[in-house]
């Protein structure tokens, strides 16, 4: 607690910008140590009362000094202008002279030729790669189409076989179909016979048909029919 008290930062006066100086001011590594290098009046403070409405007097120079400075400056301007014009003329001659233009054109042509050569090289290498790729892709496509054809043919045959199987089964069943002719007989038969779809199954997979078929009473109960376990 005592330690904390000793490190307490003293309040800083923002308006007067008093430098914050810690109690342990001999140690410069402390966080609360702050240098005040540029001491300005903050922007939000108005002009000081003593400086308000004050017009500073115009500075007066000796006339001789003014005349001399003017002469020097005029001379300087004239000479610099001449130098600029001279350099500009030289530059223009370098850029627009006939032999200069011819040289430039020659260099440009040379560069064009070089570029074209490089471009052709690149094109050739890319063409080689492309050809190889196209050949590979064509081969892949051919193989895929072959495989697809075989697969589709297989599927078609399978489908036909399935359909034929269905047709065969239906043809077999068609002898037992009920139509207008034998409906009375079928209804009579159905009314005389009841069907029971219930069955139960034991752990070995034996099926006991009937509503209340239980394995332990199956032997006593003549109604439930014990069947062999169906495969699958």
């Amino acid at each position, binding site marked *: 607690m005592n330690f904390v008290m000793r490190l307490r930062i003293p309040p800083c006066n923002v308006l007067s910008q008093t430098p914050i100086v810690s109690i342990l001011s001999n140690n410069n590594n402390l966080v609360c140590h702050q240098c005040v290098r540029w001491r300005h009046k903050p922007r939000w403070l108005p002009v000081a009362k003593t400086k308000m409405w004050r017009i500073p007097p115009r500075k007066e120079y000796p006339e001789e000094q003014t005349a001399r400075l003017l002469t020097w400056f005029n001379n300087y301007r004239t000479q610099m202008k001449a130098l600029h014009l001279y350099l500009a003329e030289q530059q223009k001659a370098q850029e627009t002279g006939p032999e200069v233009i011819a040289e430039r054109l020659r260099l440009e042509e040379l560069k064009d030729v070089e570029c074209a050569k490089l471009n052709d090289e690149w094109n050739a290498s890319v063409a080689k790669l492309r050809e190889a790729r196209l050949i590979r892709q064509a081969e892949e496509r051919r193989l895929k189409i072959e495989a697809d054809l075989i697969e589709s043919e297989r599927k078609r045959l399978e489908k036909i076989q399935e359909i034929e199987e269905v047709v065969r089964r239906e043809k077999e*069943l068609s002898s*037992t*179909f*009920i*139509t*207008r002719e034998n*409906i*009375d007989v*079928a*209804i*009579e*038969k*159905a*009314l005389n*016979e*009841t*069907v*029971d*779809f219930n069955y139960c199954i034991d752990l070995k997979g034996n099926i006991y048909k009937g509503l209340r078929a239980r394995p332990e009473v199956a032997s006593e109960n003549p109604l439930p029919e014990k069947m062999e376990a169906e495969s*699958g």
Partner: protein
Amino acid sequence: MGVYDMTLLLRVLPKAELASVLKRTAESIFEKGGIIRSISNVGQKPMPFKISKNSKPHREACYFILEFNYPPTEVNDLANHINRDVDVIRGRIFPQVNYRFSECTFEEEMKPAPYRSEVQEMMANRKIRGTRFSKKFEYNNGLGYNPL
């Protein structure tokens, strides 16, 4: 023509009248060129819940199952027609589903994960294809190094 199953719950009636109701139903199937494949009589049973039909409660019914072929576009009309019969308590039509039986894979499924062939295949694929984290981002600036 699709194959359908019709479950018929008829009022408890004498045999002759039951026959006439069934005849009516069969006739409505034959009208649109349907064929009945089988008629099964499940018997007279108490229903699992009371059903009111034509303002009369029914607690018992004669259960019948009809298997028949019928044009699929007309099936809804047939269901509508049957249920308007006064002796039918409830008639429902279901399309028959041909289940494809596949081999039992219970033993395989009960193995621990790394022994299952499915998981092994997945792991092999992961080695070949990598995961979504194994792909490195490419800047595509053609520099071969990171300029940043």
